[in-house]
């Protein structure tokens, strides 16, 4: 495993554990955690706090039939689920992402957005937008800002911007104020998963010629 230098923040970890984030944000967090043992431990530690909240909460009385209904359910169940382990199946896309791209990067329907850059928008709930980006090696992006939070996880290759150098597994967390100019590393084409929490606004086909991130 490569050394990951750029991690999730406490609030994202807690939000993921509490289950209050949009689906697209959960997706990028689950993808980072798949590659990062530090953040995995942090998520599980926050889950433990959720367990403590559950265990110490004031119990509600159940309806009389609740236990019997549940027992009927488990007796009607087929053999218990064996452990199904989501093991890494793709050298680039972590398992949670594969569910959103039809099981393989080869299945991604890329659309060109200019300068050799391609993107594919993934289907998630509309409260945040997830897209895959394909940036040819050495390509410089134009300055771009964004309305809300922007998260970028590197899956292949690397990019550099004012905030630092981001390689596979690294996640950049940029708020609305940050203007940055990412440049893909020359060594390899760069593939990223990017999530913005402002909803996507499509303004016609002319939009496709605009800088791809500035949506």
């Amino acid at each position, binding site marked *: 495993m490569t050394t990951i230098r750029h991690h999730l923040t406490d609030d994202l970890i807690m939000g993921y554990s*509490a289950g209050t984030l949009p689906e697209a944000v959960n997706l990028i967090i689950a993808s980072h955690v798949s590659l990062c043992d530090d953040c995995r431990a942090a998520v599980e530690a926050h889950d433990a706090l959720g367990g403590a*909240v559950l*265990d110490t909460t004031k119990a509600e009385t159940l309806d009389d039939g609740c236990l019997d209904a549940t027992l009927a359910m488990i007796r009607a169940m087929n053999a218990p689920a064996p*452990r199904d382990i989501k093991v890494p199946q793709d050298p680039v896309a972590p398992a949670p992402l594969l569910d959103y791209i039809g099981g393989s990067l080869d299945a991604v329907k890329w659309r060109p957005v200019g300068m050799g850059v391609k993107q594919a928008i993934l289907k998630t709930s509309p409260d945040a937008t997830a897209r895959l980006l394909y940036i040819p090696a050495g390509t410089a992006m134009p300055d771009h800002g964004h309305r809300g939070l922007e998260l970028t996880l590197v899956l292949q290759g690397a990019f550099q911007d004012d905030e630092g150098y981001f390689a596979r597994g690294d996640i950049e967390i940029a708020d609305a104020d940050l203007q940055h100019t990412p440049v893909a590393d020359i060594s390899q084409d760069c593939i990223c998963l990017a999530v913005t929490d402002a909803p996507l606004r499509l303004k016609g086909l002319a939009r496709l010629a605009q800088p791809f991130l500035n949506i």
Partner: protein
Amino acid sequence: MFGATEPLDTRDATPIAAPAINGHVRGDDRDKAKPVSAGTADDSGPDWAAVLIRIRDHRDEASFVALFRHFAPRVKAFLMRSGADAAQAEECVQDVMATVWQKAAQFDPARASAATWIFTIARNRRIDALRKQKRPEPEDLPWGPEAEPDQEDRLGLQQETEHLEEALASLPAKQRELIEKAYFGDLTHSEIAEATGLPLGTIKSRIRLALQRLRHAMDRK
């Protein structure tokens, strides 16, 4: 993050003296009448991880009933405080507890307490039922729960969870409510961002210790 690169406020890192209270501070007393000798690590209540392991390994219905009596009323409360009405919560409780039975093979006592594991199932059910969203989960580590988990990992983890409950109970009421609200899904992301910036006393140091323990358990494999 709690990574080594960022300083974490450790002023509160002194472990609190474990108060001599009986585990389930605000729980009901029904638990004590339960006919299950779960085998206890100390006197703070049944060892629910052991109960879950009996369900996992022996499909033991009596153990399931005991687990249900303790956790199902709490899961219902969790769902209702998350915005479900009583009927909806009751239905979800059945799903959650049936999932516990069905997926018991995935319970790893070196990584989570019973309460933690059931919390994650209830949370995912809530996201599914109340928000109609999928919940992307991380890739599994390439190993699974071991047949014979390391006793030290297992007990350490269970104790850590108890300490976390004690730390939560000893927080000032306002802070405790803030954390409860976060986990009941009652805080927006920006409110959570504000909350995680607060000095939350022993909670932060407890989470950090849990994190170190998990990190250690992961490294060992």
